[in-house]
């Protein structure tokens, strides 16, 4: 009897959190926004990061781009040295105060932020490319940029695909703080529902499970990617004494 009451109470709470007023739609919308922000941020972040790492690489190999390297290092120090919440608030309340598209501002913030971290990942990607590759390209009469574009960047990016994908997984979780400035991503939805039902239990639980499913799914994809790469490395490099 007591057991029964307990479960029917639980069911009532669950139904308020999910079924009443089609609230399950809110979670999906939040999840959609979270993925959208993370995806846009990842694209922007990878672009910025690869460009910064490339500037650094060219500077190291040729001594050119001194000023650009200084600016890029300053950017990396600045972004990594300040909390992302503050960066978000600065962009949302100050820089883009005229703009009410929170999702875009969130994506831009995290893109700019992730760029500084991706720069570090990409830098090691560039460093893992043998110096002889650039020399061979230049010796054939290609310019630095032509060699970068066709030889160095493809190898550098391939070398750090797994950590880049991992950065995307991190973004899915970390973007949860965009709720601070009132964007309805998955992390913000429990609060929204609680404000109507005065019950946090299921909304929080459901949001956590959804994050977990997405992160585990993406991690699975990452492992498949890593295996594929290892396999194609073996296929490309298997027979050392080729016949």
């Amino acid at each position, binding site marked *: 009897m007591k057991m029964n009451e307990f479960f029917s109470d639980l069911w009532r709470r669950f139904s308020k959190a999910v079924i009443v007023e089609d609230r399950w739609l809110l979670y999906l919308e939040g999840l959609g926004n979270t993925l959208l922000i993370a995806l846009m941020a990842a694209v922007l972040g990878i672009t910025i990061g690869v460009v910064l790492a490339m500037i650094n690489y060219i500077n190291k190999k040729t001594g050119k781009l001194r000023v650009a390297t200084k600016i890029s290092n300053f950017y990396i120090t600045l972004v990594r040295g300040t909390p992302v919440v503050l960066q978000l608030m600065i962009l949302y309340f100050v820089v883009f105060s005229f703009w009410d598209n929170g999702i875009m501002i969130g994506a831009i913030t995290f893109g700019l932020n992730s760029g500084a971290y991706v720069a570090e990942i990409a830098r090691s990607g560039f460093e893992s490319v043998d110096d002889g590759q650039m020399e061979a390209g230049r010796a*054939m009469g290609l310019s630095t940029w032509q060699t970068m574009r066709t030889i160095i960047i493809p190898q550098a990016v391939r070398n750090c695909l797994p950590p880049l994908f991992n950065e995307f997984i991190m973004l899915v979780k970390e973007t949860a703080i965009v709720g601070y400035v009132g964007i309805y991503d998955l992390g913000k939805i429990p609060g929204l529902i609680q404000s109507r039902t005065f019950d946090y239990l299921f909304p929080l639980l459901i949001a956590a499970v959804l994050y977990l499913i997405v992160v585990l799914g993406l991690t699975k994809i990452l492992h498949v990617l890593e295996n594929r790469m290892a396999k194609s490395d073996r296929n490309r490099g298997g027979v050392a004494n080729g016949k």
Partner: protein
Amino acid sequence: MENKVIIRVCDLKKQFGSNVVLDGVNTDFIEGQHVAIIGPSGSGKSTFLRCLNRLEESTAGEIWFDGENIADPKVDIDHHRQKMGMVFQQFNLFNNKTVLQNITLAPVIIRKKALAKKKRQNSRTRFLNCFRKEKQPLIEITETVESIQAEAERTARALLERVGLPEKADVYPSTLSGGQKQRIAIARALAMNPKVMLFDEPTSALDPEMVGEVLDLIRDLAKEGMTMIIVTHEMGFAREVADRVLFMADGNIVEEGTPAELFDSPKEERTKQFLKCVL
């Protein structure tokens, strides 16, 4: 016989910090000549070769090639490098490209760029002609992006045939043996139809059983009259293939001569010492 100088080196100096590696080198390389550069480790042989196509910037001096002092930072070195093939000790094949792409990459990029430039010039002329009384002629363009690609692939397949590896066109370099890699690297360097080939110890990174196939190929090139500068530790090969041998030590050419002169009756004490150690 006409002795056309293809590269003239005047008082070439190279320093790494305070370390003087080349100390005023003077020499001429003659068209069709096969020059071997020998000398102890650290004597500046690689540095000298790399200065010739400016992979290493020289500190002072002149390098005359194709009527220009290419040591001058203002010259378009990329343009001249297309006429100088280089083969590295470590092969340096492009890892992300197939064998065929390794050979076609540079010719295709360079020729496509030249084509785009011609097209740009023509549109400019066409535009300006609208305002001109006397129309200027357009540049005749016979090639297309597709024909450039096809032509490069034809050349590449012919080169693969020549180095004896036609079946390797579509594999990646990492599946090749060292000897095969170096033969592909030579084919790649030949793809731009260079006036001179620079070899930096082309067989030093190879297992002994693969040295032969690479030397055979270089020997064939020599027979066909390719101008070559070869840094090598293979004294037998230098003696056989070279018309002229330069002995470098301590940043300069200590002695030079025909292989017979240099190997059989060296004049300088430094040369005698070195040959005693390696022969």
